[in-house]
């Protein structure tokens, strides 16, 4: 029953939030600020994780491809497809659930408990629209770029391993990157990223918006935001993969 209550309240909030903005100029300014907060401020973590995971993934695949019957260029292909299909969308989004999701929930939650949201409502401003919509839009705009960046840097991570170690030659690795490349996989990855952007930003905003109490509850909302975002991202990952790849 509680789950149905939360789902109902979530859609009610989204219905209120996703309305035409009252003053486009102000909302555009908010959107730019949110792109900085959600997208640009996440560049660091996405870059670091992608490069290292690309390197580690290439090493692990290379170490496990022991059979002489398996061509070495498949190491490059594995690294590429793993990043495009799963890592740069799903795994990066799980990381962003923690970074962006907790940030959104705690920011809106703090505004709730310090009556800043009431102040907006009192002024006759649709607070849900003013606070949540720019965050969702900023996530939709930023996440696909983070996705492409992550794919690129993951492959670079593997390339660095090919240069620095002898587990795979640079030539084999590059051949693998080009081998049987399916451009649709990029589209699939970007579509997933857009869905995950909406899921993470909206679920986190929902938990923040309905925070009540004090600082402890803000922390709790933040945790709930991360946990539920991750669960829904994983669920939608399965559904979208079934719909888009099979």
């Amino acid at each position, binding site marked *: 029953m509680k789950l149905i209550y939360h789902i109902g309240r979530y859609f009610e909030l989204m219905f209120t939030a996703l309305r035409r903005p*009252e*003053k486009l100029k*102000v909302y555009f300014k908010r959107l730019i600020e949110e792109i900085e907060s959600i997208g640009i401020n996440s560049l660091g973590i996405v870059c670091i994780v992608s490069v290292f995971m690309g390197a580690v993934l290439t090493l692990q695949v290379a170490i496990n491809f022991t059979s002489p019957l398996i061509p070495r260029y498949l190491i490059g292909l594995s690294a590429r497809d793993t990043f495009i299909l799963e890592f740069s969308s799903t795994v990066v989004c799980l990381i962003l659930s923690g970074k962006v999701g907790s940030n959104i929930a705690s920011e809106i939650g*703090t505004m709730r408990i*310090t*009556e*800043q949201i*009431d*102040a907006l*409502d*009192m*002024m*006759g*401003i649709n607070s849900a629209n003013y606070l949540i919509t720019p965050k969702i839009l900023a996530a939709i705009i930023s996440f696909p770029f983070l996705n492409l960046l992550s794919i690129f840097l993951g492959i670079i991570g593997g390339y660095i391993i090919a240069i620095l170690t002898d587990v795979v030659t640079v030539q084999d690795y590059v051949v693998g990157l080009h081998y049987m490349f399916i451009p649709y996989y990029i589209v699939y990855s970007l579509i997933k990223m857009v869905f995950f952007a909406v899921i993470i930003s909206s679920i986190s905003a929902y938990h923040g918006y309905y925070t009540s109490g004090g600082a402890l509850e803000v922390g709790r909302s933040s945790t709930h935001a991360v946990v539920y975002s991750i669960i829904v991202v994983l669920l939608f990952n399965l559904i979208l993969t079934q719909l888009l790849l099979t």
Partner: protein
Amino acid sequence: MIKIEQISKSFADTQVLFDINAEFYSGKINQIIGKSGSGKTVLLKSITGLLQPDHGKVFFNEKEFTQASIKEKKLIRQEMGLVFQGGALFTSATVEENVMFPLEMFTKMTKKEKINRVKFCLDRVNISDANNAYPAEISGGMQKRVAIARAIVLNPKYLFCDEPNSGLDPQTAIVIDQLIKEITMEYNITTIINTHDMNSIMEIGDSIIYIHEGKKWWEGSKNDIFISDNKELNEFVFASQLYKSVKEIRNG
């Protein structure tokens, strides 16, 4: 003028307000007083529409607010200013941005006009040289003043203050009280203040209603308090030895 009729409000099984009727007059300081937990804030939020009363009506200059459409409510809300207990300033915005915010949202003023209006309002609440400071960088008293400046920037007809003196030293509290009184009289605003600060009640309370356990228990002015024989009101107002002595001296 604001008029409320039969306002009741409950949360789950707990009824907080019971059929409250009252009138609040323009150009006067109308105070809602009562102990902590008596329902003052719930009443104020019910009047302002931040909470929807279970039943009852709120009229702003004869215009019914509770049953108004979203569009009508929005228009009435633009005539309201609310000073929250904690100030409720936007922490990520500077003092100037906080005060300018309603202008950005609801007016078509030029940048220069907005800056001038903000300057006027900040001067009016005696704040200067803090335009670029963030709320966390200024004192509690200054935050309250900025909140008042933000509340009056659109020339409201109705001003609501939820415990504007909480957390302030007595001297600053008096300054804030006087400021609210001056602004109320100057612009003929209908001001409603929620308070349990006795100094504030004695200083500026033109019209007072006393809420006890969610019910309107008493109504009068600050002078009427001294001659009232209402037991609960007397226990609340004259809880301190100081005010007991004041009453004894005043009543001979």
